[in-house]
């Protein structure tokens, strides 16, 4: 190993193949431009190239690959949702996840752990039973379990939660899993790159050009800090920056941005196998293969377009963690961070076609977008290639608000936002 390392030190050129080729300059024209090189944007590029044969595509990214919410989430994958639209959509996503490592020839460390959503009251338990029934109806493994089963699965937990909020039961979702989030972006990016898609990092979108076709506005180009691109199709997959891009094409939306914070502990011996979520205590936690506890809580309480962290957050989350796991009192927090979550009023995403012809949205992923990465790529690439909404996303279109036809998906947020 040291000899191999030496090779890196002495070689004039990088001695190993790179994950991505670095395209020299932007071309004048592309068949499609994808804004945002996070998981969602790169997955759409990957499936556009692989399944639809559209490879003259540029992915434009202001920062770097997977540097937004793809690299800032707590990596939980599940499909125990509440509405039929949500359940079917996320179930397709979980199926895609399971083959992804082979698809990419890259280890995503996809690890099926089981997922407990704790109920601390009878009212919460009723919701768990409801969710379990909706899930079972669609063939998804979810069941309501009692406090004893929870204690057996997590022997290290104080089941009374310091006496404040005793656990009365849980929704158990066996397929619940975690995966390495950076690798997802890299896997999709490399797959798209090998098929001819260009990924332009450090390229900022300054404006989106539209023209009037007589039957309404249509996309005709994208102005970047590296020049003007002409294109007829633009996919916007930029999470917290979506409202800014929408204002470039003259669209309004119900999206609002709140920071979502998370933090990670120092690595400790493995003791927590399943993923634990408590809506009442505002905690979700899992232990990575490296031994760190990855923890998250609820949204920050007011609108903000910033990824700053706060001590209030670390304090309150630690307090609730200690109610459940008092033995962690000596464990250190090593990192905390935030992402900008694009929230919607009904907790469902905003996807598909828009009133601007050729402008497609993949947004409103708020605090629940990582798990949907593969199915978003699949459905958005279909929508882009055929210019018609994929059947799985018809309940998620932007015009549902104009029609007062919301898709109430409270199961989306793992803790009550």
């Amino acid at each position: 190993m040291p000899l191999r390392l030496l090779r890196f030190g002495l070689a004039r050129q990088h001695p190993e193949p790179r994950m991505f080729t670095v395209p020299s300059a932007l071309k004048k024209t592309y068949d499609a431009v994808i804004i945002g090189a996070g998981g969602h944007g790169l997955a759409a590029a990957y499936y556009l190239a692989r399944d639809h044969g559209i490879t003259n595509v540029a992915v434009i990214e202001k920062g770097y690959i997977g540097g937004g919410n793809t690299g800032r989430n707590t990596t939980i994958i599940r499909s125990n949702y509440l509405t039929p639209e949500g359940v079917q959509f996320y179930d397709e996503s979980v199926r895609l996840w399971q083959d992804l490592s082979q698809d990419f020839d890259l280890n995503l460390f996809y690890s099926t752990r089981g997922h407990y959503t704790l109920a601390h009251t009878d009212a919460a338990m009723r919701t768990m039973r409801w969710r379990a029934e909706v899930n079972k109806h669609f063939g998804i493994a979810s069941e309501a379990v009692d406090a004893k089963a929870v204690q057996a699965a997590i022997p290290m937990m104080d089941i009374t939660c310091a006496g404040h909020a005793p656990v009365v039961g849980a929704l158990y979702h066996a397929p619940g899993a975690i995966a390495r989030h950076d690798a997802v972006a890299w896997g999709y990016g490399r797959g798209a790159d090998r098929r001819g898609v260009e990924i332009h990092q450090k390229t900022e979108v300054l404006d989106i050009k539209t023209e009037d076709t007589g039957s309404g506005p249509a996309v005709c180009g994208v102005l970047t800090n590296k020049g003007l691109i002409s294109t007829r199709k633009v996919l916007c997959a930029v999470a917290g920056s979506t409202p800014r891009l929408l204002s470039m094409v003259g669209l309004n939306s119900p999206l609002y941005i709140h920071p979502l914070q998370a933090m990670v502990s120092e690595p400790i011996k493995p003791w927590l196998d399943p993923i634990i979520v408590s809506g009442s205590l505002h905690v979700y936690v899992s232990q990575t293969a490296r031994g760190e506890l990855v923890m998250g809580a609820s949204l920050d309480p007011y609108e903000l377009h910033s990824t700053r962290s706060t001590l209030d957050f670390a304090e309150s989350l630690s307090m609730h963690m200690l109610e459940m796991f008092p033995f962690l009192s000596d464990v250190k927090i090593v990192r905390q961070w935030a992402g900008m979550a694009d929230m919607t009023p009904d907790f469902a995403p905003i996807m598909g076609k828009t009133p601007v012809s050729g402008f497609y949205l993949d947004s409103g992923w708020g605090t629940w977008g990582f798990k949907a990465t593969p199915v978003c790529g699949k459905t958005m690439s279909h929508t882009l290639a055929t210019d018609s909404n994929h059947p799985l996303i018809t309940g998620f279109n932007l015009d549902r608000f104009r029609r007062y036809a919301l898709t109430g998906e409270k199961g989306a947020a793992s803790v009550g936002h």
Partner: protein
Amino acid sequence: MKIMTCPINGPRLISEFAYAGEVKEMPDPATASDAVWADYVFNKNGPAGIKHEWWCHTPSGVWFIADRDTTRDIILRTYLYSRPAAGAYAP
């Protein structure tokens, strides 16, 4: 912790305050079309910038308006609502 200034009670911890969204002019519900009403109910001024918002100091129940820069997380000004000037706050 962040400090916010209540126009009545003075500087307080921000945990004492509740955020209640942007100041919007309500169209007349009796005459507004469905589209105008949907725009009022659902759509938001989403892009980053300086926002005029309703806040409430919850222990005392004081409602007031805050001008806040959402890019830099800075509270620029807080003041009580006064009806004649309301039009000026429309985004």
